[in-house]
């Protein structure tokens, strides 16, 4: 099974997985609208249709979905001061458990409200004034016009720019890695992807990986890996074996 060819039918997107990734990278699809759980379900369905467990496919899928989730999380929590990535695994697990538990409780509370609403359906009461009630007069004390000016200043105040800079730091542009890898390949015909990741944060590693996908999509490189978890070798197109070349082309045809 080839993960990137996984056909998806989500609310926000319909088509192969690799096309979704491309659109997300080009910011033509908003990740906030993408139902990642739906992608996982689709993958599991496809996996279940096969008799054997396809470890390669599972590995590739996990990496891609993790990258998607990380991007989505960043989009949703962009102003978050505490970075999960910066936390020790123990602390991160604790924080994640806390958040998931919070959401689960709210779901339970929503269920309680739904039940309450149905048992209270037969309680009718008047909304608004009674037919023959006196008309209340709502008087307002004299107001200071300066309050109006202050409110307009408030509405015209630019939101603090600090958080934006922060975001850039945490989530470098894909273009940065595109340039870096292209430059590398003008000097060398191939490089070892894993060693290029040394010293990078997890966010940067994710972006680097997405840049790699983008280059392959554009048919500028080919990628090979001897075995799962073995180093990923990246080479200029034309430097690799014909077999790999063919695979790349198939993929390009589908994602076009």
């Amino acid at each position, binding site marked *: 099974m080839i993960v990137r060819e996984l056909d998806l039918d989500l609310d926000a997107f319909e088509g192969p997985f690799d096309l979704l990734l491309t659109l997300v990278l080009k910011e033509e699809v908003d990740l906030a609208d993408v139902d990642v759980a739906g992608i996982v379900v689709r993958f599991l369905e496809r996996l279940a249709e096969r008799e054997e467990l396809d470890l390669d496919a599972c590995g590739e899928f996990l990496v891609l979905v993790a990258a998607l989730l990380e991007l989505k999380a960043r989009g949703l929590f962009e102003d978050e001061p505490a970075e999960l990535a910066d936390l020790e695994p123990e602390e991160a697990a604790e924080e994640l458990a806390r958040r998931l538990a919070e959401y689960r409780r709210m779901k339970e509370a929503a269920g309680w409200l739904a039940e309450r609403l149905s048992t209270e359906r037969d309680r*009718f*009461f*008047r*909304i*608004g*004034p*009674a*037919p*023959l*009630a*006196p*008309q*209340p*007069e*709502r*008087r*307002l*004390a*004299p*107001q*200071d*016009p*300066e*309050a*109006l*000016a202050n*409110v*307009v*200043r*408030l*509405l*015209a*105040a*630019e*939101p603090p720019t600090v958080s934006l800079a922060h975001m850039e730091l945490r989530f470098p542009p894909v273009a940065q890695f595109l340039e870096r890898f292209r430059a590398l390949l003008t000097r060398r015909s191939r490089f070892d992807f894993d060693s290029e990741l040394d010293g990078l944060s997890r966010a940067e590693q994710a972006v680097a990986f997405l840049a790699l996908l983008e280059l392959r999509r554009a048919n500028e490189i080919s990628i090979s890996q001897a075995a799962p978890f073995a180093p990923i070798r990246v080479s200029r197109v034309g430097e690799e074996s014909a077999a790999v070349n063919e695979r790349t082309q198939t993929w390009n045809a589908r994602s076009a």
Partner: protein
Amino acid sequence: MERPLRLVTANPLDQLARTIEALLVVANAPLPVEELIAATEDDQERVEMALGLLAERYHEGRSGIVLESVAGGWAFRASRAAAEACGRLFERPVQRGLSQASLETLAIIAYLGPVTRPEIARIRGVAADSAVAGLTERGLITEAGREDGAHGGAVKYKTTPMFERVFGLESLSELPRLDDLPGDVDDLRERLHAVAEQRSA
């Protein structure tokens, strides 16, 4: 006839009278007999008999709730004996300030001139429907025609003379100047929209 409640309880119309009571206490306007007939799915004669029983039960001098037949139909009102207490209930203490939502909406209308609700919502980043309704009800703003001519366009709102009185202004030209912001209305409007967009990004 001394204890009408006793009578209602013993009467086969009991159930119907209770249902009509319930309908009347929920209604926002007097209910015509036809509507009571439709809602209770009973017949006119019985509905009118039940109303008669209720009128006796909810009678001035006997109850704080009084059933009255007015032009539009039947409705509950407060007894005259309770008029003073009702007066105190409805005579709201003078309100000292406006909510943030009202103040923002009012400021946008005051500084930008006639504005539509959608534009207020865009600038505030939140729907302005209830704030606009509240300010209209208080007489601080009023409708000022429609956007793009007579039909179709959204209603525009402007401030009223009452607004000027409450804020102690002779006219809108006396609004405090916004030194660091564009003095020109169009520039100010543009600035507010730009910031709102940044904020929602």
